[in-house]
């Protein structure tokens, strides 16, 4: 248990560093993304060994669903306050989500097929 705690502290420090960098340079990115990139670079360069953070990270990733519960409840409550045609928003959300899935999926598969054909 204490080991996981120290691992968590290390992950949290990456987040704090990321937040500091974002506010210092006024980047249009979020601190967590910069923190992730920092941790990633530290792992690549070997400053941080993967064993030092792996356990705590896996606990996070396995139980990510838990973290979504409070914001979803908050969003459900907020739903009553939108004064506009909700179906329009629904169409925009569904349409663009489908666009992302279909276009990403197709373009990657097409790329792989073309590459295979070129190899032959």
């Amino acid at each position, binding site marked *: 248990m204490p080991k996981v705690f120290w691992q*968590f502290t290390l*992950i949290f420090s990456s*987040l704090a560093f*990321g937040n500091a960098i974002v506010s210092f340079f006024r980047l*249009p*990115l*979020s*601190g*967590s*993304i910069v*923190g*992730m990139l920092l*941790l*990633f670079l530290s*792992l*690549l360069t070997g400053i941080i060994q*993967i064993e030092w*953070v*792996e356990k*705590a*990270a*896996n606990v*996070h*990733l396995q139980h*990510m*669903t*838990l*973290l*979504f*519960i*409070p*914001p*979803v*409840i*908050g*969003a*459900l409550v*907020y739903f009553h306050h939108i004064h*506009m045609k909700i179906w*329009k*928003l629904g*169409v*925009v*959300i*569904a349409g*663009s*989500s489908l*666009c*992302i*899935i279909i*276009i*990403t*999926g*197709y*373009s*990657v*598969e097409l*790329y*792989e097929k073309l*590459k295979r054909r070129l190899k032959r």
Partner: protein
Amino acid sequence: MIENMLISTGITVFAYLIGLKIFQAFNRNVWLNPLYTVTLFLFIFLPFLHLDYQSYENGSGVFSILMQTAIVSLAIPLFKQWPLIKKNFKKIGMGIFVGGAAGVGSTFSLASLFGIKKDIMASLLPKAATLPVALSASGTLGGVPALTVLFVLTSALFSFICGPKVLEWLNIKSKAARGLAMGASAQALGASKCLQWGEEEGAMSAIAMTTTAIIVSSFIPFYMIFS
């Protein structure tokens, strides 16, 4: 205040653990995912526990910090799959760029078609990015944060439910294509789904989620110039 925090956090974790047990007992049936069962349970029963939604929201702040450390934790699968990324760098970069552009572009054109107002448009545009990233982008654009939360989560939930079926209908079999599509559209939810499919799909979706966030937030300044 501290009491409120303990109750909100405790009840959420407790309900989640029970929800997870039920989910596992029923062979991981998609509709029994703790995200649906536990959210619905809490949404209905919070008032009976003399806990109104506002104080629940204030009391569950721990989870928003954990959400951020969870995003930092994505560095671990990213690092483990680095050889795979390096090998497929062009494919991943192309897929995510095209997909991200399609996401922002389709949102913009559909919203303009429906004549959606500027502040709601600003809350809609960054919805393809992960929650914390979308929130900061929405703030820069002059959007409404609570709306952005709603849009990000509903589009992630929609993609999480429909994505696997759409991919099946379109007969998309490649592991990379499935992982990238799910990660780009459903973010962390998609990544959790893909981790169940397999290691490569999981890694690809984690990569897609982080790179989509970076690409979407780099599209935002262009919108600000044109509008």
